[in-house]
């Protein structure tokens, strides 16, 4: 348990991931499911960015006068790509939800299952 208290940041991101997973599994509204997916995605991004931080580290900008240990720039670059992919997924999912509502009149998953 000492290891878990030391890595309390990581444990909090695991908790956020599970909240997002709960929203995807247990909620019936499609937009709620999509918000749960976004929460899962941001939890993973936060995990990776936190793994790249250094104690007392500065932002990874090498300017004249920038000193000290730098935070690692590689996770930041990966997460920038990840955020763009997340917004693409969200936009496409929302457009599909709009089309489902136009065709079926409802966006609740259990009603959609029964309507087939």
């Amino acid at each position, binding site marked *: 348990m000492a290891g878990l208290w030391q890595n309390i940041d990581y444990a909090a991101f695991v908790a956020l991931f599970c909240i997002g997973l709960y929203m995807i599994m247990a909620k019936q509204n499609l937009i709620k499911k999509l918000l749960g997916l976004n929460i899962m995605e941001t939890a993973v991004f936060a995990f990776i*960015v936190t793994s790249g931080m250094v104690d007392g580290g500065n932002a990874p900008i090498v300017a004249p006068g920038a000193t000290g240990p730098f935070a690692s720039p590689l996770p930041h670059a990966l997460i920038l790509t990840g955020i763009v992919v997340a917004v693409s997924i*969200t936009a496409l999912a929302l457009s599909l939800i709009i089309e489902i509502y136009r065709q079926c009149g409802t*966006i609740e998953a259990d009603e959609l299952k029964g309507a087939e």
Partner: protein
Amino acid sequence: MSQLFDLVMLALLISMALAVARSKDLVAAAIIFSGYSLVMCLLWQHRGAPDVAMTEAAIGAGVTTILVLVAIGRTCRREK
């Protein structure tokens, strides 16, 4: 002090995520999600990642929230 800031931010994130899960009004859920995104941006700025924080603030609190509100406007507002 910095540790206390981190703990408060993490507690705020978890409580906002729970509020998004439990809210029945979808517009309220979208706005709380926008606030969650902003707190995440502050957390990353505190961890020495200003580029990621700027991107998350612009996209999470900006574009994603606007697109979700447009979608809610064209479908239902309340969760059944």
